[in-house]
């Protein structure tokens, strides 16, 4: 019995280890390929690089305009995250600490907008942003991202702020503070974990998003990193080290965030499923 159990445990461990290899090896392969010259890659596609070179990374940065795309991505994502913080904090405060007719309706209307998937509004958005002069401008994509972030962000902030005791609000009101002051000085400091979760969650999906970025920022100078990578592939599939270098650069910010903020990401990604 004991032997059987131990065998069973080893088998389970082996299975989990094997799955881990499938999730980690592709990334290792990508990094190793990125560090090899084109010739070395042909001779030695799987081993460690004998003569590591940073040429591919430098070339991807320079010639494939990764530096520029990276900058575009940072502008769009940073502005999108900040805007979403502001909009969702305001809405979350109103929905959690203010009593007014239509509160439930507003809450469900905001969540209900999730029924409208991005694909469905893609074409009118494209023509509307064109009319507003926001096509191929970062602001256009920033506004669209912030809008898409509203339902989940409002949901998250509302349920977090609901946990803040109302006595705090009442005491502040007695001291003569208005709602904006209460939100900024009392609520937001308390809600820092929720803001962190929301910010990282938004960073991840905005950074990774392709469809809207591709349609709204189609001109080369405005492109985000994912649009750059998605269209890089066709051109460079034959040069694997070069392609790998591009992929590695594009994945790097997200991998760093993953290593540092795993707990917060986990929280953001399980919101809604469990309380």
């Amino acid at each position, binding site marked *: 019995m004991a032997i059987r159990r131990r065998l069973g445990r080893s088998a389970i461990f082996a299975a989990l280890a094997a799955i881990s290899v499938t999730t980690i090896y592709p990334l290792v*392969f990508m990094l190793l390929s990125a560090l090899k010259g084109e010739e070395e890659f042909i001779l030695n596609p799987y081993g460690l690089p004998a003569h590591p070179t940073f040429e591919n990374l430098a070339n991807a940065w320079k010639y494939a305009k990764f530096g520029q795309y990276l900058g575009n991505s940072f502008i769009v994502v940073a502005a999108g995250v900040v805007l979403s913080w502001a909009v969702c904090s305001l809405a979350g405060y109103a929905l959690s600490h203010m009593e007014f007719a239509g509160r439930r309706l507003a809450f469900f209307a905001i969540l209900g907008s999730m029924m409208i998937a991005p694909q469905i509004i893609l074409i009118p958005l494209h023509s509307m942003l064109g009319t507003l002069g926001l096509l191929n401008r970062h602001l256009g994509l920033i506004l669209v991202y912030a809008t*898409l972030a509203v339902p989940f962000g409002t949901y998250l902030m509302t349920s977090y702020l609901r946990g803040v005791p109302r006595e705090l609000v009442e005491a502040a009101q007695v001291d003569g503070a208005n709602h904006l002051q209460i939100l900024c000085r009392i609520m937001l400091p308390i809600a820092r974990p929720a803001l962190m979760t929301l910010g990282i969650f938004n960073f991840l999906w905005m950074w990774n998003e392709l469809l809207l970025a591709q349609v709204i920022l189609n001109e080369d100078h405005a492109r985000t990193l994912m649009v750059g990578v998605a269209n890089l592939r066709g051109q460079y599939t034959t040069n694997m080290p070069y392609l790998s270098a591009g992929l590695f650069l594009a994945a790097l910010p997200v991998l760093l965030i993953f290593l540092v903020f795993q707990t917060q990401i986990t929280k953001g990604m399980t919101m809604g499923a469990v309380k």
Partner: protein
Amino acid sequence: MVRGRGAALSAWLFLMPALVLLLVFRVFPAGSALWHGFTEWSGTSAPRWIGLQNFVELFSRDEVFWPAVKHNLILVLSVPLWLLVSLVLALLIHEGVFGWRFFRAAFFLPSVLSPVIVGSLFTVLLSPDGPLNHALKSLGLGALAFEWLGDPATALPTIILVILWGIFGHGVIVFLAGLAAVPKEIFEAARLDGATGWRFLWHIVVPSLRHVIEFWGVSLVVWSFTSLFAFIYVMTKGGPGYCTTLVEYHLYFQAFEANRMGYACALGSALFLMVFGLVLLQIRLMAGREE
């Protein structure tokens, strides 16, 4: 709670930015899409009203639409597999197998990567002379080496597996969060009663996690209809032929490759009909824990 008329006014002021954004960039375009579905419109010329013609073509003459729907349905049918994989792995980690912290991080890793990166990576790994085929050949299984994404028979199943690779870790952490909320005694009592293996999973774990499983299952189905564009665009562009075209990809293609904006809007309405009931269910499950 703060009451009174002044309070109502400030409440709506606080909600204003959210509501304005939603109205301008989500609700209005949705209405516009609905209307343009009844027009012929190239995007540059003025739209011309043609009644139901787009829909008639979509349902009766479009050679790609029904296959695309079929591919979407195949994805939906694979969702129970995705749930099961994530659930079993979450359970093993929850039980504290040796190295569980490492496994949790390793499984979660792919789900933070962009579908663009995942898709590109696997296009390389699965290419005819890529590492997978190379490994198969060196193991003496050369007969299994294959053009995974280029063959009509294997393209869609391969993409489904790649998507599973990209998403299963997300499911693992969702189920881990659910398992953390289940009182320890329930599992311990079941163990004492001798429940093991599949019986333990089916009769004890699944009922305790019912709500989480429902929510995650519905989320995955919605996601399979609306969030796979990048995988398809990067890996196969819907090919070979139309073997991996999904409804959302067909929409993108009609709009931005074929310049048939009106027709694509009609496709958008069809897509809306496929998902809106599911999203309502998803919202109910989310809000059920709130109200």
